[in-house]
């Protein structure tokens, strides 16, 4: 387990929960992150790092980086026990993941409470996903219960596990193996206080996951930045193809013909990655592929509108190309959002793929053929 700073008892032995101030013994030195560690709390089972509910600027910056996908993969806290406020042997134990963003959101919502936090080694992944992947699991919980010796820390036998953790944890098996009783808390840590006040009962609303606009939009940046690397390679290649003329690569063709094609491609990605999540409930049918296809039709329509100004867009091969490839790109990227949505199931995604994949592949092949036909006709070979 983690080392705690020895000088802990002097500066933050018993601050009241509402006036916690980071003190001189904060240990930000270690590479393993212990967010906003104030000091350690001396307990019967040894020193336990005491943390604050407050977010530092680094915590906020970290959250932003996670949201845009630049730091998601390596944002962890050391698994184990933490103290928030001044917990004792009767205090509640909240189980969570060791994804730092998850951990930070939990401690923020525990403001004013005295509690223990038990962070499982979910490999830096949030509770729900980790539970689905098997790192936030019955085995891991049992392991941490034993490793931390929490039995000797608290008098009761209650562990509060977030409801979405139930995907990976068998409450009855944990009880069987450790004697601890798993109580499923609300989905959102924001509801923990009322859950506790309500005698550890979550209301129906707290148990139901919604997928409102704001939650969908929070997921957009990650969806949005994922396809761009592939897009850059493809764009470079496309520009080259369009620049390629019988007498070499001509720069003006890259701009005149290649660039509009690439820009329309970018629009079709935005349609799939941004408009599908944003307009999810109002796009037609329940199929994400068809939702993506529908909104993807804006790209060939834009091409049609601008064909008066951009000659290449009035070429018959390119017109067909626009109607085939762009809605397909939006459809494909829209379908990816099933992975982030809170209500799609694996059987449904499989069904969509079974029907969609052959169509996607066919569209790509047709698009390539159309570009070849376009080039051949432009070179007057056809």
């Amino acid at each position, binding site marked *: 387990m983690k080392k705690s700073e020895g000088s802990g008892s002097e500066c933050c032995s018993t601050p009241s929960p509402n006036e916690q101030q980071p003190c001189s013994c904060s240990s930000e030195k270690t590479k393993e992150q212990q967010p906003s560690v104030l000091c350690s709390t001396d307990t019967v089972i040894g020193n336990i790092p005491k943390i604050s509910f407050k977010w530092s600027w680094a915590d906020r910056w970290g959250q932003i980086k996670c949201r845009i996908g630049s730091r998601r993969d390596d944002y962890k806290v050391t698994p184990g026990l933490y103290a928030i406020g001044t917990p004792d042997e009767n205090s509640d134990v909240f189980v969570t993941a060791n994804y730092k963003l998850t951990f930070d959101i939990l401690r923020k919502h525990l403001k004013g409470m005295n509690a223990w936090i038990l962070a499982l080694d979910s490999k830096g992944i949030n509770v729900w996903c980790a539970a689905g992947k098997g790192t936030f699991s019955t085995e891991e919980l049992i392991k941490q219960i034993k490793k931390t010796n929490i039995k000797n820390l608290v008098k009761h036998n209650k562990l509060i596990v977030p409801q979405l953790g139930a995907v990976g944890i068998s409450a009855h098996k944990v009880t069987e193996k450790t004697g601890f009783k798993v109580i499923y808390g609300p989905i959102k840590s924001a509801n923990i206080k009322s859950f506790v006040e309500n005698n550890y009962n979550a209301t129906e609303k707290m*148990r139901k996951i919604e997928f409102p606009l704001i939650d969908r939009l929070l997921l957009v940046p990650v969806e949005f930045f994922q396809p761009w690397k592939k897009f850059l390679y493809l764009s470079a290649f496309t520009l080259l193809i369009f620049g390629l003329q019988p007498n070499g690569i001509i720069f003006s063709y890259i701009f005149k013909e290649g660039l509009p094609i690439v820009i329309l491609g970018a629009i079709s990605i935005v349609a799939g990655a941004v408009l599908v999540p944003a307009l999810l409930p109002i796009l037609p049918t329940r199929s994400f592929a068809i939702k993506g296809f529908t909104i993807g039709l804006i790209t060939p329509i834009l091409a049609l509108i601008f064909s008066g100004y951009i000659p290449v867009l009035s070429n018959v091969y390119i017109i067909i190309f626009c109607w085939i490839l762009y809605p397909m790109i939006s459809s494909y990227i829209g379908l990816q959002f*099933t992975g982030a949505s809170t209500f799609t199931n694996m059987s449904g995604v499989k069904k969509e793929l079974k029907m969609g994949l052959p169509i996607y592949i066919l569209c790509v092949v047709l698009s390539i053929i159309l570009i070849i036909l376009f080039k051949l006709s432009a070179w007057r070979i056809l």
Partner: protein
Amino acid sequence: MIYLKNVATLQFFSDKCTSCKMCMKVCPHKVFDIKENKIYITDKDKCMECGACMKNCKFDAITVDTGVGCAEALIRGILTGKEACCDNC
């Protein structure tokens, strides 16, 4: 919002059920409800196959095929012939 119709693999065996209500607690989509002390499925199409109910049913009264519901992971699974896993998300 509800996903595709008639695809969820959720199965509930009422003969094994003791009405302990654990499934009602863990399901994030209120797929289970209780009437006259008997648990029933409200709407199977609401099921996202997360498997929380199955995992927490002491009496094995629920089965459901669970797995990664992420398209890219499933495509990778199809292409490589391995089980879908989502290490990237």
